[in-house]
């Protein structure tokens, strides 16, 4: 099969690289930057991408990252074409430790503009073998692996301080797996979010499970969450229940969709998002998911399923030509429906909606000034300020009274 050459289109190149990975010729660079989650590199047009770089993954990849001949830096090449790239060093804070001796790198992982912190890496679905079949990302497949350790608020605060001090990223992304209770994990994350908000001027995104009651969504917004993600991952109803039996049985697809729709009415435009994993269902189904979610004001984020040696689930090889139209559709739909997607950018693990413009050769529609603004510290501070003002205006009253049963 003759594969298309994507070197002229950085958006498409990002997708192909994520699918196929790239070998790293320089052993020093490989040892320094290639971790279990891949390597972060910067493509032309400042497109950030996380590429699988482990040997087992890249064995069939035509891409190689090597030192640029006669120049400083690196190039990405397939033998015939090449583009200059930069390998992003692992953040320095990874190697430092909290006062309690936990490496910051264990607590937080930076993926471009945001840093993921998972204070409790256990997911209750694993207990009953009802976990999502593709899952291994942030959560321990084995609860004992982490020794049952839950990072304290103080440890997380220390970590956030290190992240922000190094300017590794401007958005803190807290995530949580499934736990008993009808709050979707919000109750557990509340002290973390409050502590971060009271100590630092940064945006906080939360990836949680849809709560049983919308009051938890109100509460999450009120106590400081700027952006919320309830990941559907698979839009197709049947595949959803087969691949995610726990979520289908204990939460339900419909509840996830309802919670997303409600949250989109509470949070700012473009700050409620849901993952639809490309590759776990037919592209047509993902496109239907995009249409459905955007009708509710939700930003679909489309990570590509990345096979892993540790995961029970495997899918047939994906081809960039098949999935690029999905990203094009995402970009066009978001623009058409007026959903703000400017704050979902510079994420190495997914092709963001902003990057969709390269796939449609729609670069002229964007303003370099605005792009620079959104990416700048000033832009981040502005987003934080606007988010804080909006919350102050919208959160009407907080009464201390006995809550009704089943509510926060």
């Amino acid at each position, binding site marked *: 099969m003759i594969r298309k050459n994507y070197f002229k289109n950085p958006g498409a190149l990002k997708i192909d690289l994520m699918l196929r990975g790239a070998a790293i010729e320089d052993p020093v660079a490989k040892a320094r930057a290639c971790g279990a989650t891949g390597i972060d590199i910067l493509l032309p047009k400042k497109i950030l991408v996380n590429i699988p770089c482990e040997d087992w993954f890249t064995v069939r990849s035509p891409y190689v990252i090597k030192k640029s001949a006669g120049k400083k830096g690196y190039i990405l090449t397939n033998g015939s074409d090449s583009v200059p790239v930069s390998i992003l060093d692992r953040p320095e804070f990874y190697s430092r430790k909290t006062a309690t001796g936990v490496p910051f790198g264990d607590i937080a992982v930076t993926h471009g503009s945001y840093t993921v912190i998972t204070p409790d890496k256990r997911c209750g679905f694993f207990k009953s073998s009802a976990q999502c079949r593709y899952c291994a990302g942030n959560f321990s497949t084995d609860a004992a692996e982490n020794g049952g350790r839950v990072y304290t608020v103080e440890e997380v605060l220390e970590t956030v301080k290190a992240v922000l001090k190094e300017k590794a990223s401007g958005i803190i992304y807290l995530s949580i797996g499934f736990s008993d209770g009808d709050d979707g994990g919000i109750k557990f994350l509340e002290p973390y979010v409050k502590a971060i908000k009271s100590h630092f001027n940064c945006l906080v995104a939360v990836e949680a499970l849809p709560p049983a009651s919308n009051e938890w969504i109100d*509460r999450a917004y009120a106590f400081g969450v700027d952006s919320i993600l309830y990941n559907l991952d698979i839009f197709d109803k049947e595949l959803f229940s087969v691949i995610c039996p726990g979520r289908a049985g204990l939460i339900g697809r419909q509840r996830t969709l309802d919670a997303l729709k409600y949250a989109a009415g509470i949070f700012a435009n473009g700050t409620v998002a849901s993952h639809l994993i490309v590759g776990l269902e037919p592209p047509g189904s993902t496109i239907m998911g995009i249409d459905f979610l955007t009708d509710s004001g939700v930003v679909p984020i489309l990570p590509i399923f990345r096979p892993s040696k540790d995961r029970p689930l495997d899918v047939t090889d994906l081809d960039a030509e098949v999935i690029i139209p999905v990203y094009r559709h995402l970009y066009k739909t978001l623009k058409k429906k007026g959903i703000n997607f400017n704050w979902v950018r510079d994420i190495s693990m997914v092709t963001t909606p902003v990057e969709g413009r390269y796939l449609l050769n729609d670069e002229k529609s964007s303003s370099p000034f605005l792009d620079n603004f959104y990416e700048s510290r000033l832009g981040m501070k502005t987003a934080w300020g606007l988010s804080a003002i*909006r919350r102050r*205006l*919208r959160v*009407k009253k907080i009464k201390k009274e006995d809550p009704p049963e089943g509510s926060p």
Partner: protein
Amino acid sequence: MRVEIDRRPIWVILAGKALRPVFFLLLALGFILFLQLPVPEGLGTGGMRAIAVFLLCLVLWVSNAVPVAITGLFAIVLVPLLGVLPRGATYSLFGNEAVFFILGAFILSGAVMQSGLSNRVALRLMEKHGGSPKRLIISIFLLAAALSFVMSEHAVAAMLFPIVLEISKSLKLRPGESNYGKLLFFALAWGSVIGGVGTFLGGARVPLAMGILKETTGSTIGFLDYTVAVAPLVVVLLIVGYIVLTRFFPVDIDGVENAHKVIVRRARALGKVRPREYAVGLILGITILLWITIGKTVGLAAIAMLSVMALFVLKLVKWREIEEYVNWGIILMYGGAIILGTALDRSGAAKWMVDAIMTQWAQTPITVIALFSLLAILLTESMSNAAVIAVLLPVSIGMAGRTNMSPEVLTYVVAIPAGLAFMLPMSTPANAIAVSSDYISVRDMAKGGVIMFLTSWVTFNLMAHFYWPLIGLR
């Protein structure tokens, strides 16, 4: 914790939030512009400034943009700042006897409630006289009025509210639908309001009026003099009030056995009368007796304070308990109102306003009484009744020289009607408490309130015209 998210468009929320700063900005601009206006003939600069402060406070009291106490602070700060009165003189007005009298009244009232005495009296009376639907209404109506003779009407309404609510529930009355439910809460609210005008103790407005009267003219009114002057009005309003209520809301239940059981159960639960209750009751009785007999000579505030001291010396109350019952906001508001009234008087502004504005409409005693009482009753429907006194009394007292009426009569003309708020829940806390039960709607209250409004105004004027001359008030 309960959270509500305002989902209206952000511009609507912003517009709503902007109203307040815009209001204050316009108010400040209006205040400054007023001060820049040329001083009218016959009015000095001090008078002009006093009127500016008066208008500012009037807007704030009517709009309720800030708590009434804070409006009082505006007067306290602005009067010396603008040079209307010297700083020392201004703040010394805060030590007015009326302020200490009302402080004493709050503490006495708190002690009566804290001891359980008022609750016991209420339950015993209802147990004894509340055997049928009509008798129960009458006992609540008269009880609220009688208690408001010796306690703040607000405190009476708050104290009786849980009892009346429990009675309504025991009778399974449907909120908003049951006529008897409406009757019960109207009896509570209107009984408190009518009783509240009966003596100095029913509310804070009469002591405030006395304070302003004393500061501006040096004269004063005795505890008994006031009660005698107002008694016919109280009697007529109680009778008319009962007739109006039972006509508008005919009794729609057959018996009150369940309610009576509740009252009996509650009364029994109190046990025997404790020494503390006897002692507090005794001190209250002696205090009222002293107010009646030697109040004019010794001063009402001195007697009130002596009683308060006795309560603490005998360890009948604790300061921490009493603090809950002292409305410091009202005390602050009083200070401000007295300062404002004195500033208007001493600067000549009150006299000028009377000459310039009121003279056209109020030239004879009859028209003065009719006009001021009407204004007071109308204003008190939407303003704190003490604020009505602060606004109207300096002007009405200013009419004394022009109409040959005594300042005392002109004080009654405002102080009594200022307590007659029947129409709206915002008029007085007693009405608000009744509406909060959900048994009475605002519409119900307005409907019956109009009749009471007209009755009280007409009765007041008839009383002033025919009865007051008989007791030497002219």
